[in-house]
């Protein structure tokens, strides 16, 4: 797989349910960032987790990082229709000039 691959590619849930998206990567990282993108719009930063951190919370978002498995997960609790968007993980790889490598994203649809 490529650096920063999300799983699943698409997820459809009912409002109020939790949504979990996973991201896998291949090389050593400085940090991993999650972004959200509404269709055809800009990228909104959600959360950054550093390589020495295991879990971070921000409101209804919970991000975990397992560097031994080279994977991260984004959990959105009590989802709302307004959470419908694409979610991307992006890795900041060691010694790579702070470039972010994005995955292909998970398209989340939350049905009212």
């Amino acid at each position: 797989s490529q650096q920063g691959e999300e799983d699943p590619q698409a997820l459809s849930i009912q409002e109020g349910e939790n949504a979990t998206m996973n991201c896998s990567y291949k090389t050593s990282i400085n940090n991993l960032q999650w972004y959200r993108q509404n269709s055809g719009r800009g990228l909104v930063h959600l959360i950054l987790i550093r390589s020495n951190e295991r879990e971070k919370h921000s409101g209804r978002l919970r991000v975990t990082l397992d560097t031994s498995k080279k994977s991260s997960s984004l959990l959105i609790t009590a989802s709302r229709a307004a959470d419908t968007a694409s979610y991307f993980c992006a890795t900041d790889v060691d010694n790579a000039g702070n470039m972010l490598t994005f995955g292909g994203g998970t398209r989340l649809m939350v049905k009212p």
Partner: protein
Amino acid sequence: EPEVTQTPSHQVTQMGQEVILRCVPISNHLYFYWYRQILGQKVEFLVSFYNNEISEKSEIFDDQFSVERPDGSNFTLKIRSTKLEDSAMYFCASSDTGGATQYFGPGTRLLVL
């Protein structure tokens, strides 16, 4: 809340023409980036810029591309002779330090005909 701004929001150009995409990064940020996203594809890194020079660039960022910080607020991406395959959404981003959160602008949608 400070944000990255980009102009224009949309640009249509003829193949072979030069385009300049403009960005105003967040004011106290020192690191600047350009990314692009071809429709339906991943966001791809183009270039990072710090201390008035390029710190990293991708294979996409060939001799047709250049970046400049002409003054204390603007950061520009120039494509010298556009190709059809340059059609994409171009995002500017900035961060206050290396390895920090990168804040993205709303993007410029470039269409090359």
